[in-house]
């Protein structure tokens, strides 16, 4: 079990971009189960007018994908150590064959099931799915994350 405070140490993201609440189960370097609670008080709901139809309150796919990607990064870190430091940057590089047949809403607990397919020096390949209860809301054929030295991204160095 990895609690939220520890996840904030592992991931280079700050709040509110840390989109995982807890890791429930990890087989280091192989598989992981993580959860995220969807809350109506998250920034993605703040400017939404009251009274819109339910479907408009579906958690954005972009953030769901990011949340799953962070779970994959934590799984990678369970084998490789901390990801992204002062002189490196963790980047979401690619995805393939992902489907989003369901939605999550405020009040739902999203569960990510992640498998680390393989890693090379600075890249990790993961697959898996996201669930609300027994409903699969997303499947991910392949996600690729890379860690790059900040020096190869000159546009980002020193940005404030």
């Amino acid at each position, binding site marked *: 079990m990895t609690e939220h405070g520890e996840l904030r140490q592992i991931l280079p993201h700050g709040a509110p971009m840390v989109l995982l609440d807890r890791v429930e189960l990890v087989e280091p370097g192989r598989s992981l189960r993580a959860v995220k609670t969807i809350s109506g008080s998250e920034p993605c709901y703040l400017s939404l007018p009251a009274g819109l139809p339910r479907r408009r309150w579906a958690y954005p796919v972009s953030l769901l994908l990011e949340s799953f990607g962070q779970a994959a990064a934590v799984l990678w870190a369970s084998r490789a150590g901390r990801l992204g430091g002062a002189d490196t940057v963790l980047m979401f590089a690619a995805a*393939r064959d992902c489907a989003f047949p369901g939605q999550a809403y405020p009040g739902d607990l999203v569960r990510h099931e992640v498998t680390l397919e393989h890693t090379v020096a600075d890249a990790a390949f993961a697959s898996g799915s996201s669930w609300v209860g027994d409903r699969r809301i997303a499947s991910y054929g392949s996600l690729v994350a890379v860690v790059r030295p900040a020096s190869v991204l000159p546009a980002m160095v020193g940005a404030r």
Partner: protein
Amino acid sequence: MSAPRFAAPLSAVDELDARSADGRLLLSVRKHVVADDPYLPAHFPGRPVYPGVFILETVRQAVSAALGEVGGAVADLASVAALRFVGALRPGESLWVEAAVGAAGPDGGIPVEARCRRADGSDVARLKLEFRYPATDD
């Protein structure tokens, strides 16, 4: 463009131009990245970068706005066949997107291909997606 009327991490489209050609809808989209965009100070602290998933969000909002509401429902991203992020945008830069929205297939899937660049023309991302109107907007 006005803020989306569905949950979204930020208002991810500043300018949207849509025109029809050869049975497709061609979109030109601009998003100017600013340091105080929601979530941006957290991605990453001290080194803000427009997240790759926000590039996806820019395309999502542009396509859904261009397609418009049908029976009170908006089209949403249903699948990602492939996407690749090759560059990063920092505050002060603009994201330029050219997207082609095809006709809906027999199963309702609407194919979208998008190419994203910086102002200097350098590649930032390529996306191959499918959108769909929900069966019911309950």
